[in-house]
């Protein structure tokens, strides 16, 4: 319950800031322009959202750090983190609440692209299975990115540093799948297992595999756990 209160406060905080009205529309315009103009959907003439789901994980690598950079860094910079930590809340409740708040904003942005799917469905026989899989995959991938961005934000009081660190982490997990042909064979297996993109692609085909779900959930758990422990460490430092 207290976690949800923090999440609500965080989400409301986002919606009160101009950044939400820059980042969200930018994301939507980019996704829409890619899918309908640059891709281009009508010229390809196929009833599928696959090109959209190919782009969004890449967009998330910029977009999510822009959301998460202020989660803790801003509170530390302005000194409100100390106030927050005096609340009757456990560290994990603060971390989880902030995570859910940021995820709420990301989920809102993602759901605002649902008209794309409705448009395709109105113009051809769209298979909704891969669409549901794609959105579920975006939620899982977005959760993992948000948790990593939050971790980066806990580590620093500078929002720009938090953004860059989060971007580098997210980007590394994103491109690792593409770098596989260039790495030694012995490393290929472990790196492939860490590839967000390959796992997301599987879910976005319309196949929800417990291994992929557990992977994303465990990334979130580890990142949030480390963030909570970092907060705890601030107390004894």
């Amino acid at each position, binding site marked *: 319950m207290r976690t949800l209160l923090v999440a609500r406060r965080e989400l409301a905080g986002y919606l009160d800031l101009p950044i939400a009205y820059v980042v*969200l529309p930018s994301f939507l315009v980019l996704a829409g322009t890619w899918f309908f*103009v640059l891709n281009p959907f009508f010229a390809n003439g196929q009833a*599928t959202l696959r090109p959209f789901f190919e782009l969004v994980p890449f967009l998330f690598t910029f977009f999510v750090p822009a959301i998460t950079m202020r989660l803790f860094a801003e509170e530390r910079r302005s000194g409100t983190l100390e106030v927050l930590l005096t609340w009757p809340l456990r560290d994990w409740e603060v971390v989880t609440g902030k995570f859910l708040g940021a995820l709420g904003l990301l989920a809102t942005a993602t759901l*605002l692209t649902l008209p794309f799917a409705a448009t395709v469905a109105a113009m051809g*026989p769209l*298979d909704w299975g891969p669409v549901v899989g794609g959105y579920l995959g975006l939620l899982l991938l977005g959760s993992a990115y948000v948790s990593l961005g939050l971790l980066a934000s806990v580590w620093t009081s500078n929002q720009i540093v938090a953004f860059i660190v989060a971007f580098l982490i997210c980007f590394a997990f994103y491109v690792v799948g593409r770098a596989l042909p260039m790495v030694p064979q012995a490393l290929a297996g472990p790196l492939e297992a860490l590839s967000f993109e390959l796992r997301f692609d599987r879910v976005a085909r319309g196949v929800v595999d417990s291994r992929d779900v557990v*992977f994303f*959930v465990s990334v979130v758990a580890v990142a949030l756990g480390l963030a909570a422990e970092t907060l*705890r460490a601030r107390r004894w430092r």
Partner: protein
Amino acid sequence: MKARRREAFETFLAAGLLLLAAVLANLVAARWPARADLTAEGRFTLAPETRALLDTPEADVEVRAYLPENVAAPYGTVVRAVRDRLEEYRAASGGRLRIVWRDPTDPALDAAGRAALAAEAKGYGIREADLQVMQADRRVRQRVLMGVVFLYRDRQAATPPIEDPDRIEYALTRALRDVLRGPRRQPVIGVTRGHGEPDLLAGPLSEVLGASGTLRDVEIDGRPLPNDVDVLVVLSPTRPFSARERYVVDQFLMQGRALILLQDHRQQSTVFPDVLVPQVSGLEPLLAHYGVKIDADATILDREHSLPVPFGRDAGGRPMTVHHPLFASTDAIDRAHPVTRGLPSLVLPMAAPIEVAAGPLEVTPLVRTSAGARARRNVRSLDPQPLIEGKDAGAEQPGPFTVVVAASGELASAWADPQVAVPPPPSRGEGPPAADEPLVRRSQGEVRLVVATAGLRMLGLDRNALLLFQNAVDWALIDTDLVGIRARRATDPPLDAVEPGLRKVAKFGNILGPPALVIAFGLVRGWRRRRTR
């Protein structure tokens, strides 16, 4: 100080335990995976055909999977997908499938062990896959044993090398079916040569068609066709068959055999690529006798449903892509027929209309153009602009047109009438003509035909056309029980026809609508906050 150290220890311990728990959770998930296939047709779930086969063994089936664990990326994904699929087969077999995993790249194997394993796999008919990998910043070829053999009683059947994740189920189920079905003569697919056809046996299509039977070159020179050929494939000849060659094809069919003709009726000039020259197979008169009339002078164009293809260069020398009316696309497909089952769409480059006449064969139109397609006579230029602008459109014939048909039944020879003279066999040297075989006037069994008025060009452009080609071979060989699995590799379905105005609304509505909604929400929220202050 002591308390701080303890706190630090607890923090690191907690972080370590968390990581350990995450690793364990992933290992457990990998050991007992579960998955849900959300696709409408269960594309990634075992097909009913596979499940039915897995119910039939009366004894255990041993599966030996030669799958390299240390294979270069990105082929590791394929290996894992094969593993997962085989596990699904095992689960669905109710314990009748026993899998033995063999790793040709196992580091524990010494050179002798590796050689023994390779010999064992090759003994089962497993072949090496050709992979392209990066080594020291260079692209190199790597050959790795990668296949599965099914052993049942005293029989065995191996898959071809599995490199494409979309082909896994088809390859496995085909091998399983072959091993369960028992000894059976391998059908022979004759591929005609001698009239400018592509060399199918040397190209990538050989792998595609090789799954259905043994491929064999058949020289068309007027002599009777070999007796062991079950289906004759004629793909885009550039020099027409002579009357004598038509006769030998007719007599081949009279044995109750099958013919597949995929013919391009317009060819690009080798000197001036924008100039189109007519091209016929020479088999058109024969097909017309059977009730399949090809209007080879007419070329189909579709201004609304067409494929973007490279054509010409812009002012900066960059290649241009245009929606070319001569590359019509269609989704008017008979999806119930085995030849076209599950195909969502097809591209028909420069196709010619087919007219079906009443005759002895039961002819099924399989693919039609859209109603908006037009047929134009004597198209001689590839330049799309006059066609887009509709110059001389008044002379065009309105569609829709049939472009692919399948026909079957018993029929009379085109030379059944004693008044029609049989073209003499070719002479050899200066002696008299070679002795001819007796004329067969009526087919001895069912004849099967598949005719498409787009050929090699269509196969090169459209993955669905390859599926059609493979299905046609299987249908001609009366071997269609796995066609449904193959159809799962088809492309996404095409969009319906949309008015240009509606397209614009959809495009800009989607690009600008949701962001406008967000900004409007922000303005309202800001205004309400200011009011409450």
